[in-house]
């Protein structure tokens, strides 16, 4: 096995283990830290894929900026343990309808994952134009393809994020008396 294969399995295992740890234990601070670990392993995978720019952006945006905000909120609320929602029969998420919907969504997710894995393992690799020629590590090539070939997807994602942000502000705003 080459260095890249070993690296892939080690980092992949780390990412999966850390992600399981995020949902597996109850202290929110540890969840945040494990999520950062998972993002770090993902960044390592990007480096193995020869795209250091994506790896560093992953660290700056997710592990750096977003998770600091998460940690800030968790510390501000100062909850040592998560609420035991499943033992609370009156909790809205424990109504039979909500539980059935959740089960259906879980089945759907597993089917989707299975389909994706089968699909990827059988089909030919598709070379993205522009990026594959110049190498994705070239920041200039990446920027050019984002603002030309993938401009629509890029702008659509931005609007989606903006909508989420406006929604959060509306939800958090106190009613003016």
């Amino acid at each position, binding site marked *: 096995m080459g260095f890249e294969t070993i690296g892939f399995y080690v980092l992949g295992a780390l990412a999966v283990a850390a992600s399981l740890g995020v949902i597996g234990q109850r202290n929110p601070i540890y969840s945040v830290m494990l999520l*950062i670990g998972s993002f770090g392993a993902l960044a390592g995978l990007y480096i193995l894929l020869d795209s250091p720019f994506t790896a560093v952006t992953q660290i700056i945006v997710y592990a*750096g900026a977003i998770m*600091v905000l998460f940690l800030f909120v968790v510390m501000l609320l100062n909850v040592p343990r998560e609420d035991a929602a499943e033992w609370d029969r009156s909790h809205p998420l424990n109504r039979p309808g909500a539980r059935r919907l959740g089960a259906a969504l879980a089945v759907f997710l597993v089917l989707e994952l299975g389909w994706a894995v089968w699909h990827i393992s059988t089909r030919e690799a598709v070379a993205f134009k522009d990026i594959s020629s110049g190498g994705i590590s070239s*920041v200039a090539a990446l920027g050019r393809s984002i603002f030309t070939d993938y401009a629509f997807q890029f702008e659509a994602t931005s609007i989606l994020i903006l909508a989420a942000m406006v929604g959060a502000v509306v939800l958090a705003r106190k009613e003016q008396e």
Partner: protein
Amino acid sequence: MDPVLIVQVALVVVVFQALLLSAAGMVWAERKVSARLQQRFGPTLTGPAGLLQPFADVFKLFFKEELKPKAADSVLFYLAPIISATTAFLAFCVVPFGPPTTLFGLLDRPVMLTVADVNVAVLVIFAVASMGVYGIVLAGWSSNNKYSLLGGLRASAQMISYELSYGMALAAVLVLGNSLSLVELVNAQSGYWFGFIPKWFVFLQPVGFFIFMTAGVAETNRAPFDFPEAEQELVAGYHTEYSSMSFALFFLAEYVNMVTVSAVATNLYLGGWHGPVLPPWLGILWWFAKLSALLFFYLWLRWTLPRYRYDTLMQFGWKFLLPLSVLNLLATAAGVLYFGI
């Protein structure tokens, strides 16, 4: 074995030791400068001019007892200083500090004077700096002390606020130099305008340099932005409960971060190892002179200005520095388009 490889390994050891020594030197300089600014002498007894004072301090810290509050989170409490110190040292490994050298013909090909010449070096420094805040925040939370927690919260709020201006100021330099590699950015600053003004980016980016240094002081939690540890309000802030070497690691991280920010500013704005008078192979002297000047500026600032108020800090960051840095980036981009630098 390849001699270049040996030099590379030696470089790692030398840079690590030099950073440790620079922290010691900065502690000594801080004491001396603060004393002079307050009409005192500072340390004079330990060694010539008190030069051995930082080593005496370290030995004292070595022999102190390591205390941990009973209610502290035992894993994160010990992890936090390690994160702080590791990220501080990690950031410096992509900073170049001199022109390529063959060590007076000893090597058959020149070696770059940096631990790792990464082509996205500027972003690596930014990423590692954004990781450094976890050390402080976790220290504040895991100590289970209200003053520590407040210090940690302040640190995260302050770093989020000033990281934006810091990044925007960096982006303007990247637009000018058209690269993400620190080596290429430094080399873009060689030569002169009209034969005598060195082509340093500080002359094209005076506003950017101001923003970078201000945000840099805030990022390293130095006075007048030392809110995470504001001793009059928070005892000692996030490291209230730390003693012995755990405390020393935080202390070390603060000084190493200062050196890193100054080194990055030297490379991005002050032309790195390029300068007049000295021959190019002595460029490393220029680099150290510029670094020392910036470090002295840090000390000078701390002992001259009083601390801001917390709300004025946030207002300054969001309502003044951030709009200014956005305008600076826009103006730089427009200038590069118009003049085609």
